[in-house]
């Protein structure tokens, strides 16, 4: 029973982690809470729905979803945020702007796709696997594999490529990054694409998992993933992964032992407790900017 719930929690948590990583990527480089991220994730799910409805087949639908959502995020940055940054707008202005963008995306989705819940075909449906009394569906297993794969890709990009080095430099000290010849604006654009990409994958996975897509689907998931990012230490990628998994497990456990009414709150209770003990989050770096 507990083992079974643990499996559910981990799968759910991996998807939260995907979203949390998106928050962390952008926060790491701009110190900005990208409140449009939940809506971008909903946008990804709708792009997936469109591609699936057009019977494009999984690989094409997957790539289309990633590219479309990544591009949306780049557009948000280049059209809304970059001009504000160029005028040295305070962070609060940027925060309000992305919150506005979030509603624009949501309403855009409603106007285009309607306000009802739309069915989404189950993905990777090849039956169940039972190991030692714990049943895991092929869908869950696939979500696990896909998210792990994406984390591996993100890890490789940030730690083993030149662009990743540029991302880390820009995140730690944008001025110095410019002075070694890094085009920080390009790095920010790329970061937004990566963040959109991970939101797209999360959207696709969750749509296929719950077999449902609707325009407000990003609100609760976005907030919980944000909690997960803060919990793990926002700006730290592996922290976000850990935070996501913790939130997922907490939610599954709360559903089982306390009832689903408490599930939604569990993420925030844990967040609160962790922040009381360690305000920078589990893996957060306290003195990042003091050195």
């Amino acid at each position, binding site marked *: 029973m507990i083992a079974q719930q643990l499996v559910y929690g981990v799968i759910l948590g991996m998807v939260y982690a995907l979203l949390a990583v998106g928050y962390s990527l952008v926060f790491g480089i701009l110190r900005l809470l990208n409140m449009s991220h939940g809506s971008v994730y909903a946008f990804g799910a709708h792009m997936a729905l469109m591609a699936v409805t057009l019977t494009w087949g999984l690989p094409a639908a997957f790539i289309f979803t990633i590219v479309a959502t990544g591009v949306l995020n780049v557009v948000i940055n280049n059209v809304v945020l970059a001009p504000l940054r160029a005028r040295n707008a305070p962070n609060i202005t940027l925060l309000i702007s992305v919150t506005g963008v979030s509603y624009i995306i949501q309403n855009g989705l409603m106007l285009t796709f309607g306000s009802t819940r739309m069915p989404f075909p189950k993905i990777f449906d090849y039956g169940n696997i039972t190991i030692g009394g714990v049943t895991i569906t092929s869908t869950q297993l696939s979500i696990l594999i896909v998210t792990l794969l994406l984390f591996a890709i993100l890890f490789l990009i940030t730690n083993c490529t030149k662009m990743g080095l540029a991302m*880390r*430099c820009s995140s730690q000290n944008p*001025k*110095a990054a*410019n*002075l070694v010849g890094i085009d920080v604006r390009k790095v920010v654009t790329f970061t937004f694409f990566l963040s959109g990409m991970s939101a797209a994958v999360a959207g696709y996975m969750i749509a296929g998992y719950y077999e449902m897509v609707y325009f407000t689907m990003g609100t609760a998931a976005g907030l919980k993933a944000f909690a997960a990012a803060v919990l793990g230490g926002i700006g730290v990628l592996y922290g976000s992964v850990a935070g996501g998994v913790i939130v997922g497990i907490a939610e599954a456990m709360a559903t089982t032992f306390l009832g689903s009414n408490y599930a939604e709150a569990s993420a925030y209770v844990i967040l609160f407790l962790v922040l009381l003990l360690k305000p920078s989050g589990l893996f957060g770096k306290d003195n*990042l900017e003091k*050195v």
Partner: protein
Amino acid sequence: MKNKLLELKDVNTYYGSIHALKGVSMEIYEGEIVTLIGSNGAGKSTTLSSITGLTPPQSGSIIFEGKDITKEKSANIIKMGIGISPEGREVFPTLTVMENLKAGAYTRTSKTEIKESLDHVFELFPRLQERKKQYAGTLSGGEQQMLAIGRAMMCKPKLLLLDEPSLGLAPNLVEMIFKLIMRINKTGVTVMLIEQNANMALQISDRGYVLETGKVTLSGPAEDLRTNDEVRKAYLGNA
């Protein structure tokens, strides 16, 4: 006559509404060490950030190797061969020493050439090689300064800009940094230097410029400045 490497012509730079550089003109020739002297807020650092494109001038022009770089992006300016060790060192604290140096070579592509520069930097600063796996934030002030200069050397600069390289360092380290600046200069790198320690800076320099509230008020051979009464009174503290 040596070749002109860098020229500033009537450069005006603003920080918001503050007119920080008021028609600054300078010339730097190949192989020189040139010192900028001036009190806080005189526009020394702004001169450097105008050259590197961080605060592009509103008017006037900056010519590097015959090319106008006034409106160029920082990334392109660095790529042309201008390296800078900024004020306050500004190393990447949670990158290792090695990663910091690699970041310094960001504009370059040839792996063998980058390796050559790395060997050169380690030869100049053996301490950096010993600490190459350490996070830059855990280094001492002197080591961070070495790293900042080493990082600037990684772009294989023709012109090296050094903003207060001796600030906050113990006297023996200050001397070491100055010796290294001379060594780097001997390998054919032109150096532009900002220093609180004007006396020492002028000793190793060929020429100097004195800046006051955004204007060049005096310039000439370093030796002349060192013996100039006004300069001695205002900046050398041994009138």
